[in-house]
């Protein structure tokens, strides 16, 4: 009976576009969905530090090095806000990290592709962060308050990242022959994996329906993917690069581009652990966590030793 009232209050909040806050009653599957989504997002941020971090020590100018370092640091910061947002739902960072490290939790599959050249750093900022922004802008108005507020800050920083990526692509595309080839090669490799970031086609997307009802999502995978393609084609043209899709064509009727579907078999393979870098990413996360164990233990032991006199007093 009481539960029913709580549920009415919850539904009424959603209907009025109000925020749900940590102390409010919420349905268990809403909580679970959020924990899953926010923690996957947090994991994506910190795993995402690895492919980009791969080029920090090789960034080709002092400026590029600082910008990339700051960018990767931002991603870590996003991870931190998101883990904190997830904790307001009654889970802990240790639990979440444990799920990541044991391979139970997912993170964005895009980070299971390797960064082979400097142009990949440009492509990630431009395409991958661009796609992420398209997915995430709507989350600034999502129904769960702490998540929505974290996303406001994250989106601001992500749009800088996208510009940073496009700037790298611009330098390369208008640079020497070798630089332009590097840019084209990166675009060829990142285009379809980026399209996969919007998730499977709507007809096959198991989590979308509730997510839209709960304002955890506001547009479908296919709508977002279409918007991304429409936006990006002009950017590719400006760079003078070729879009690696023979099926791309302007469709006057829908006022958008028709494009070829990504290889969804590859998508499933990467998600289920068989992408080119799944093992490396997980191993790198596990190694840092394990190598940091004695550091965390030392900090805890020191804090305990030096907290006792105060507690006794």
């Amino acid at each position, binding site marked *: 009976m009481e539960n029913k009232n709580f549920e009415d209050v919850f539904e009424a909040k959603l209907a009025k576009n109000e925020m749900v806050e940590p102390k409010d009653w919420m349905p268990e599957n809403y909580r679970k969905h959020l924990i899953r989504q926010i923690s996957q997002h947090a994991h994506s941020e*910190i795993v995402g*530090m*690895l492919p*980009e*971090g791969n080029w*920090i*020590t*090789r960034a*080709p*100018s*002092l*400026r*590029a*090095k*600082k910008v990339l*370092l*700051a960018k*990767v*640091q931002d991603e*870590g*910061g996003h*991870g*931190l806000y998101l*883990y904190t947002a997830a904790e307001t739902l009654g889970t802990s960072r240790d639990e979440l990290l444990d799920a990541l490290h044991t391979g139970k939790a997912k993170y964005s599959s895009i980070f299971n592709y390797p960064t082979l050249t*400097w142009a990949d750093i440009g492509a990630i900022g431009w395409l991958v962060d661009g796609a992420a922004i398209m997915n995430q802008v709507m989350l600034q108005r999502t129904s769960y308050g702490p998540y929505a507020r974290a996303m406001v800050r994250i989106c601001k920083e992500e749009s800088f990242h996208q510009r940073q990526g496009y700037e790298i692509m611009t*330098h390369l595309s208008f*640079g*020497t022959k*070798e*630089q332009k080839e590097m840019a084209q090669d990166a675009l060829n490799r990142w285009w379809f994996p980026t399209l996969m970031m919007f998730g499977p086609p709507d007809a096959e997307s198991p989590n979308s329906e509730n997510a839209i009802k709960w304002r955890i999502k506001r547009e479908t995978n296919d709508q977002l993917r279409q918007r991304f393609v429409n936006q990006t084609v002009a950017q590719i043209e400006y760079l003078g690069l070729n879009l690696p899709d023979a099926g791309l064509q302007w469709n006057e009727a829908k006022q958008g581009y028709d494009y070829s579907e990504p290889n969804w078999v590859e998508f499933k393979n990467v998600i289920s652990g068989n992408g080119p870098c799944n093992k490396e990413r997980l191993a*790198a996360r596990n*190694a*840092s966590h394990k*190598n*940091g*164990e*004695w*550091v*965390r*233990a*030392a*900090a805890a*032991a*020191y804090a305990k*030793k030096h907290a006792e006199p105060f507690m006794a007093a």
Partner: protein
Amino acid sequence: MNHLFTYTLRLADNALVLGQRLSEWTGHGPFLEEDLALTNIALDTFGTATSLMEYAAKVEDKGRDADALAYRRNEREFTNILLVEQANGDYAKTILRQVLVDAYNVLFYTELAKSKDETIAGIAQKAIKEVSYHYRHSSSWVIRFGDGTEESHNKIQDALNELWRFTGELFEQDETELTLIKQGIAVDSKAFQSKWEKQLDELFAKATIKKPETVFMQTGGRKGIHTEHLGYMLSEMQVLPRMLPDAKW
């Protein structure tokens, strides 16, 4: 010999090489907050390196810019001290290397801010706040490690045993420095050597660790005679500008 160029470039090399080492940790820190903190320190350090490189390029006035100085010189032309090029090792070694440099930098940049060369004084002024924060960070970890668990105590003690032999270079003076000290441009580091030692002795006492007693001090960085670590670091750092020499980034 252009003493001002040589001096500025040394300071720039110290910052660049240390920043490069620190940035190797990004994404691999012992936990997220510490990953962010160390990356911040790396960023500050690269910031100082860039300002100093730019000024060195200007002072040299031979058409090389800051990037050319950072990316187009060979191992033998780098004049950083050996301490900053030492491999990161475990987190205790990274922190210990850092505390030795940070304690020095706080004293050094405070003096350098009084330099008669206005550009150098300005760069130093900006760096003081940053290196003071870096010292708070590294020194608090030295204490935590020393007075934490047996394992962390042993690791930080090992790091001190290993790295102390590279601290002699911090106080070396050659003709360049002596000339510029006379002109009020360079810092007389010998004047604060005992203060630096005392400060670290107090820190090590709090951390319950001990400096190794009879240590032969290594030297060579100023003359471009480095440890074997630097060559690998530079080949990694410089790969793109060397691979595509005509490219702009």
